[in-house]
């Protein structure tokens, strides 16, 4: 399945073509379900979110072109954002549940493989992974935690035991450094 094929399926979905929607589901649902599962680490929740993702795809296909995203990036971003929204809701529920601070921080601990494991060495490592390696490990970890675990500045600051503003400055500098590396 090439990007051009997915692109044309999304364009057909934008015109209300159900067949194209079914074809897109058949070709991309396994990738997107893999992302939901990895982010949420819970099969039932991942199934719910995958359902939401495809409902969003159907309703937002008309707006796909305007964003200037490549088709797989568009789909992956919808899936990632929906999964992160769910993950954040789960966390805030736990905090509302009256856990004390320490407990809550512990619950925020990542049950999934750590960032070292996320960036698997391979011949085709994405450019971003290479550039993340040029950052200090803690800063690369912060970027990955924000994307894959949906951690907020507040949560990151607590995790790395730095003031909120320091965390923000760190991360923004890391982003610029990444961009510099990526554009080389």
């Amino acid at each position, binding site marked *: 399945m090439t990007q051009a094929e997915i692109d044309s399926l999304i364009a057909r979905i934008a015109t209300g073509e159900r067949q194209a929607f079914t074809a897109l589901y058949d070709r991309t649902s396994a990738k997107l379900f893999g992302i939901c599962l990895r982010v949420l680490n819970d099969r039932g929740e991942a199934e719910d979110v995958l359902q939401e993702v495809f409902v969003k795809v159907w309703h937002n296909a008309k707006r796909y072109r305007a964003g200037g995203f490549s088709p797989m990036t568009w789909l992956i971003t919808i899936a990632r954002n929906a999964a992160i929204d769910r993950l954040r809701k789960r966390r805030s529920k736990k905090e509302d549940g009256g856990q004390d601070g320490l407990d809550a921080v512990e619950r925020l601990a990542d049950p999934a493989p750590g960032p070292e494991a*996320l960036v698997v060495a391979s011949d085709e490592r994405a450019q971003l992974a290479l550039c993340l390696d040029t950052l200090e490990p803690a800063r690369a970890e912060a970027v990955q935690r924000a994307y894959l675990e949906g951690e907020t500045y507040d949560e990151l600051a607590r995790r790395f035991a730095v003031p909120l503003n320091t965390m923000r400055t760190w991360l923004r500098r890391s982003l610029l450094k990444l961009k510099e590396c990526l554009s080389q």
Partner: protein
Amino acid sequence: MSAAASDRDEDRALAGEYALGLLEPDAAAAFEARLLTDPDLRAMHAEWAQDFASLTDDFPEVTPPARIKAAVHDLLFPTPPRRNALMGWVLGGLMAAGLAVFLLMNSGLLGPSGPGAPTLTAMITAEDGAMVVAAAFDDTDGTLNLERTAGAAVPGRSLELWLIAGDNAPVSLGVLTDGVHTSVTVPDALRGQMAGGTLAITDEPLGGSPTGGPTGAVMATGVVTPV
């Protein structure tokens, strides 16, 4: 660094923060408003989205259960309800009843009365007529013969038949064959519940519901009545 270059860096970092979901709601809303009018910012955002999406490259693909696809279809493309059109119901009912008799006669399920003749029948139909299955039950040996004259299973899925007696939970009577004709033997314990019960057909994963209860959309229903 020039003021323009510094603004550009500011925007780059901002677009990255937005793509990561790090902005506070107010800042995110302001960023989204700018996205509408600023093509450079849109390009920066799209670039970040693409860069970050590569973090998922190594995630293994996992085929989701078939019921998710059915659930998405049910959500997006529901069968139009006809409950508000009372006349449609009455007419539909009459037509279904007429059709039932016609189909039963033609399918040979209804022979002359005598031993082995069906004592109960049902017309299991979709509201929109997309699925029609005639059922004839012989209570002397518990045989339920089904003739599917319209509708079919979604490719890669199965149609499963259920008996709903009164307020009881649906009990599976088995999966319909791909052919027109299906014959099932109703378990002894259920035979007494057939009269007045409802037969329903649901869309299920290949081979039938994995849970013992219906998991997919209801495709057709019909009430079991005496011949």
